[in-house]
């Protein structure tokens, strides 16, 4: 494997800064956080999702309510609405927290995430496995432990689910090789997150891709 395909922490931070700049422009909610001793940082995003309930919903309401509410809207809704929803349809609001950290062992970014109900109860690993996108389910069920595992967050120390980074180079190398061939710069974080994010319910608006190619002249 070529040294080019791996990138260092400084490059990671640079691409994250570019990514967050665009996130701020479109209100996508990503922010940068640093460890207490400020030696390292990571990207963080929180979003809320309504999971459809198991019980029959009363006539008039839609049977499947699986919408992603931007944080501001979710917080504006009077709390009563959620409580009412819980008892009538049984659907629940889940808070997802995504962190993008740099792994010096694999020299790639890693996606950490956790999910909990509004009352703080965390979701179990099997709920996470069940909640992944249909097209990833087969592979996940064959080798669940190789794909999503639970680990200690290297900076916060709390349990998080992790998308295992050992295969990252496999799919990123062709992306980087191609971008070099067609002479178009690519934001590693944007490309990588657009591949791994959907596996765990994290989607990136298309505008990120348009921005990445516009940055061509600006990468130092």
């Amino acid at each position: 494997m070529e040294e080019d395909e791996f990138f260092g922490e400084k490059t990671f931070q640079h691409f994250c800064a570019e990514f967050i700049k665009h996130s701020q422009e479109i209100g996508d909610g990503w922010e940068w956080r640093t460890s207490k001793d400020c030696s390292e940082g990571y990207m963080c995003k929180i979003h809320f999702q309504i999971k459809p309930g198991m019980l029959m919903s009363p006539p008039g309401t839609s049977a499947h309510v699986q919408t992603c509410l931007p944080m501001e809207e979710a917080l504006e809704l009077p709390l009563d609405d959620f409580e009412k929803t819980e008892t009538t349809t049984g659907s629940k609001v889940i808070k997802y927290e995504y962190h993008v950290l740099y792994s010096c062992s694999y020299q790639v970014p890693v996606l950490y995430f956790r999910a909990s109900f509004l009352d703080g109860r965390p979701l179990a690993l099997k709920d996470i496995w069940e909640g992944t996108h249909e097209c990833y389910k087969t592979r996940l069920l064959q080798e669940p432990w190789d794909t999503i595992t639970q680990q200690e967050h290297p900076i916060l120390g709390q349990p998080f689910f992790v998308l295992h980074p050992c295969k990252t180079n496999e799919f990123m190398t062709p992306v980087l090789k191609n971008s070099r061939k067609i002479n178009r710069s690519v934001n590693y974080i944007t490309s990588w997150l657009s591949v791994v994010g959907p596996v765990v319910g994290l989607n990136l608006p298309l505008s990120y891709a348009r921005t990445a190619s516009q940055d061509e002249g600006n990468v130092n």
Partner: protein
Amino acid sequence: MHYPIGLLFDLLASSSALPWNITVHFKSFPEKDLLHCPSKDAIEAHFMSCVKEADALKHKSQVINEMQKKDHKQLWMGLQNDRFDQFWAINRKLMEYPAEENGFRYIPFRIYQTTTERPFIQKLFRPVAADGQLHTLGDLLKEVCPSAIAPEDGEKKNQVMIHGIEPMLETPLQWLSEHLSYPDNFLHISIIPQPTD
């Protein structure tokens, strides 16, 4: 924690006499703070994940990836069933390095202190310097955890412990990695306050 029991003892109770008395709780599992252990498969997955990460550091994952699934299984089963020869038949390959090098690419290590919020320190560190000299345990600490070692003329404030002993700071890190690593191929190092007796 998914930490090796020896590490937990060094870090939290090294001054206690053996046997180590612990309290086991059966209620109110602190989901937010600790990793749950749902099955033996979870432990195997965690162990293999550590071994793979160690090999990513030592050999850019070449050795572990060249092995077959049955070799990975043998490593785990050797550990699980306390079969030294079975374990080392595979593990010795993870401890080799090319003849032209003087050691691994980077050393897999984690440094633990109870006084910090961060769970451990893990950074890239080469076992051999540019001039070919072998880096020592002292070199590692000076670089990634300088507060752990006392200044030249100062009083010794901490113990640097691996497997319950304090190796000399002059010990080459490459040697420590080959001979004092835990089964997961990491050097788990505890920095604990010097006991005052």
